[in-house]
């Protein structure tokens, strides 16, 4: 009786079994990678803005502190985006003809707000509060990265829940002295392990509480 299949099928069929398994595994892995990639999260993707505002220039170049513009960081959940007025305090004097700043001037003249693209955008069901994090010694750079080196702003962390939990599970690893909060070039001491624990105690942070769902979700 004539053979239906070529003998090579023997190998192929066996290989196919292994291949199938590998394919499934690979599929899962790729999906996970894509989901964590910059494509999804915009991490390390500089965002175009109406005005190409450079934190690098304003912070490093001019040494303006974060709180000068983001005035509510210590008081409210929302750090605050500076009103056009704040820009104009300087830019009515300097660069007051620069075409780059045209949108700012029009906004000021027409009282129409500037439109900034949100760089750090948490989903609406996660309630983040800047003031408490600052009060408990979480530095700006811990979450926002070295903004002082960013010509255009991008986010340096995914802001995914797993990332939040890294710190909420053991804040002592990231906590710093309160007066270092705005220090963009802060680097933790060698003894951060013990130092952090001490700070956490001093700021009376109950890390057990920090993983309650109700801390972030309401």
């Amino acid at each position, binding site marked *: *009786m004539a053979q*239906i*299949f070529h003998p090579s*099928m*023997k190998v192929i*069929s066996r290989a196919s079994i292994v291949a199938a398994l590998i394919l499934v595994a690979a599929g*899962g892995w790729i999906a*996970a990678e894509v*989901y*964590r990639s910059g494509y999804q999260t915009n991490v390390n993707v500089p965002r175009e803005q109406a005005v190409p505002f450079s934190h690098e220039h304003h912070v490093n170049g001019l040494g303006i502190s974060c709180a000068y513009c983001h005035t509510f960081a210590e008081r409210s959940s929302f750090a605050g985006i500076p009103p056009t007025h704040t820009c104009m305090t300087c830019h009515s004097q300097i660069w007051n003809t620069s075409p780059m700043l045209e949108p700012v001037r029009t906004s000021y003249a027409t009282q129409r707000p500037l439109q900034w693209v949100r760089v750090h955008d948490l989903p609406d069901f996660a309630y983040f509060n800047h003031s408490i994090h600052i009060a408990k010694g979480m530095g700006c750079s811990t979450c926002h990265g070295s903004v002082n080196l960013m010509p255009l702003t991008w986010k340096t962390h*995914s802001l*995914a*829940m*797993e990332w939040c*939990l890294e710190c909420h599970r053991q804040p002592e690893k990231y906590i710093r002295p309160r007066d270092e909060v705005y220090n963009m070039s802060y680097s933790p001491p060698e003894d951060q392990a013990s130092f952090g624990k001490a700070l956490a105690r001093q700021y009376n942070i109950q890390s057990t509480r920090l993983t309650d769902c109700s801390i972030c979700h309401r």
Partner: protein
Amino acid sequence: MDPKAHSAAFDIPEPLLAEGETYATITDKISGDVLQTKTPRGMLITLLVSFFLVLVLIGSISYLFVKGVGIWGINNPVGWGFAIVNLVWWIGIGHAGTLISAILLLLHQHWRNAINRFAEAMTLFAVCCAGMFPILHLGRPWLAFWLAPYPNTMSLWPNFRSPLVWDVFAISTYLFVSFMFWYVGLIPDLASMRDRAAKRWQKVSFGVLAMGWRGSAHHWHRYEMAYLLLAGLATPLVVSVHSIVSFDFAVGLLPGWHVTVFPPYFVAGAIYSGFAMVLTLIIPARKLYHLEAYITNRHLDYMAKVMLATGMIVLYGYAMELFFAYYSGSPYERFMILNRITGPYGWSYFMLILCNGVIPQFLWFKKFRLHILSLFLVSIVINIGMWLERFVIVITSLHRDFLPSSWDMYYPTVWDWGTFIGSIGIFVWLMFLFIRVMPMISIFELKHLLPWKGRVFDSSADAN
């Protein structure tokens, strides 16, 4: 085995296989049914009707995804409705397969050989139908994968304390093992199909599925080993799956759910309904394909006996529920039972007792067991009864629980019915498709039932 010995042992006039059957006749008949070009009219009609029901199912599900589970009759006290009733019902039906294949195999009940393939296929499709409902009944079905433990960006695990998570494992394992069992069992037959197929495409497709089976002693040895291992693997599942499904209720604190007897009573019920469904399908099927020679009345008789036995266990479960309600002294338990019997859903409880308790008692009589039509009807009655059992457990326990203020009624909507009927449709459809394209009786295993004199080597038959 000698048929005479059989009949002496079992005192049954009917043999397991009609006289005059040989290797050749068996192979010819069964593989012929698949390879023949013309399809029996009854088959065509059944496929057509069931396919229409499949469309109904698709329609209901689409509307469900557009609107949400609110299109069903579920409400605040009654959070679970038809979806869960159907889930449990189908899972139950799915039990006969593994029981017949695995347990009866290990117990050397050779009569099973005529029906195990059929039962396994049924199991497979029933479990598919069952597996569909837990996903459909979710408020946000597109997030069903959250019930599975996998590394995620939320760095969260599912809640392993929840019976619903156990279900995920139980049902998927069961589905996988049943499939393996069914497929491995098919291989030798697929090979003989391959060899007998006339058309090229048939040869190829059966060839691929047969995975190069040549029926060498080597193959047979491996095969027997694998099959036995799988049987051993599947046996605990028969018990575990429905026990775990029963935990969905038993773990809850509702009167009518929080009962220790649930696991055994659910398993018994499952086998009960499983065998009922096998009969409901196999009786018309064997008529369609004139398989009376292979699926003899004696098979049906055995199945009827199994039903009777499991049916009695189920009945005991009902009795236990009543006893607990009385003995617990808990006003809630007592009220629950009173409400079950005298409440607005009392009709369902009486129907349940009638279908599962009273009518099957006829099975005590051999005459009745061997009267095919009555047996067929009883099997249908039992199917209905087992569905009602789940209805009673889910609905009447929920609709009046602890605080009378929250008591309310549950009324299924057209969409509840659509999904339910539709699931039956897809089940029957798949079942008959299977019968059409695969040997519905295990050819080689059936040959074990041949009396010795029948086992003459016939060159027209293949060496398997």
